[in-house]
């Protein structure tokens, strides 16, 4: 192809062909600007192998640096009282991400940022903050649901260990406390996130539906688990079945006498346990 040479640099040039095509290509050394010259389209240069290797190494290093800066999530721990929150943990069980599923959860995380803290410190901080913000009123019974989704075996993420962790850090309020900890697999967690619920509350929704006990999604998301139990007439422990771990602390009696405050008893979860207080 021939064209009127408009620009020339390093063996290539821009030409205008007679039929109006502005084209870039390889031009001869002899051609001067303004002359009609032959032009060859620029062929895509073959990338030298060393450059490919360098790119691969660079990509690997980059990925490594990225992983250092943003480690992959090893486990998720969802914590539900009235606020509903989820903590994403790396393999050291340090919180790398956090999420609030309802208004209370978002507010709680805004007040108590858990990111960068070890799981134990994060749970403790959130429970203390929930108490100080009035989410765990004194003199009432409370239900705490902990759902854990982990990639591998980790003793610190056993349901029993988690239930004990919550029990240890639960504020010293008057009233009974029931802590239910369950395992949730990854697919369940994904479905829960898609529904805008924590894994624990999503599990409850599924179990309620299975028992023909419909619940308004907004109510399930926003209200405390204690209220949910009262409204549905079924305990959280009964709903999650025998796969979870349950710790129960008895509350004060009416005369104000402490009945084992600070002392939790492990209780079995009866599979057919329907109705609270039964």
């Amino acid at each position, binding site marked *: 192809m021939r064209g*009127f040479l*408009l*620009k020339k640099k390093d063996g290539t040039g*821009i030409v*205008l062909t*007679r*039929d*109006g*095509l*502005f*084209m*870039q290509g390889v031009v001869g050394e002899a051609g*001067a*600007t*303004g*002359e*009609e010259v032959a032009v060859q389209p620029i062929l895509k240069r073959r990338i030298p192998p060393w450059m490919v290797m360098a790119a691969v190494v660079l990509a690997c290093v980059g990925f490594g640096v990225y992983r250092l800066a943003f480690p992959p999530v090893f486990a998720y721990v969802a914590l539900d009282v009235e606020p509903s929150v989820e903590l994403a943990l790396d393999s050291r069980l340090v919180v790398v991400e956090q999420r609030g599923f309802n208004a209370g959860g978002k507010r709680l995380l805004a007040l108590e940022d858990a990111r960068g803290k070890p799981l134990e410190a994060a749970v403790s901080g959130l429970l203390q903050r929930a108490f100080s913000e009035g989410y765990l009123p004194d003199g009432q019974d409370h239900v705490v649901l902990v759902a854990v989704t982990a990639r591998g075996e980790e003793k610190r993420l056993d349901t029993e260990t988690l239930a004990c962790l919550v029990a240890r850090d639960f504020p010293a309020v008057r009233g009974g406390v029931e802590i239910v900890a369950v395992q949730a697999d990854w697919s369940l967690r994904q479905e829960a996130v898609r529904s805008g619920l924590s894994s624990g509350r999503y599990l409850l929704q599924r179990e309620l539906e299975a028992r023909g006990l419909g619940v308004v999604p907004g109510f399930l998301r926003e209200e405390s688990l204690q209220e949910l139990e009262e409204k549905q007439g079924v305990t959280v422990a009964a709903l999650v079945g025998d796969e979870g771990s349950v710790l129960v602390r008895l509350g004060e009696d009416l005369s104000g006498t402490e009945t084992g405050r600070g002392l939790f008893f492990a209780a079995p979860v009866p599979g057919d346990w329907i109705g609270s207080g039964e």
Partner: protein
Amino acid sequence: MDDAALQKLVNRARAGDAEARNRVLEACRGFVFSVVGSYCRKPLAWGQDDELSVGLMAFNEAINRYEPERGVPFLAFARLVIKSRLANYFRQENRHRKVSSGAEISEELLQNEAAVAWEEFLWQNVVRDRAEEIEEYEAALNEFGISLEELVALSPKHRDSRMALIKAARSLAAEKKLFEQSVAAKKRLPVRDVAKKTGLSPRAVERNRKYLLALAIIFRYPERFIYLNSYINKVG
């Protein structure tokens, strides 16, 4: 008058056809005026300014000296001769004021001896002249925010599309009022007006805005972009 018709007349004029020569001179008075005006950079008027007479004589001289086989468009060669003669004219004007008549004679002799060399020098100047024209074209494009590299990417790949756009660019360039008032002055392309005048759809005008402008500039100012105009004028 298009390139081919002008070339024919020039050939006839070179062969001694006086009528053809007169027609070329008449047809190209505007060209001579434009070249002399841009060289002198001052307002000129026929019959009042000697520079225009010098330019017209130089144009006539260009008809005699033109060699089609060199592959240079006639108007480009004529522009070179005019500029060269104007340069001589201004040089002589300055010297007339400074030197005696004896010196003028020896200068004239020297000039006669150098006439042949001058002609060759003139042809060699074509290279520089072309380069200057392209620089001027690139500068004109830059005024519209267009670069040559962009045009490489924006040129339609299909020949039929380019032919249609070349035709449209010619129509746009022929619309003197529209081009000077909207395009040249405001540095923008009034899409609807251009679509109406060129017969293209507004979408096609908008999509090929820079390409259309790049070509219309060449066609609108043929006396400035002689080489480009001559090159692309041979199609479409």
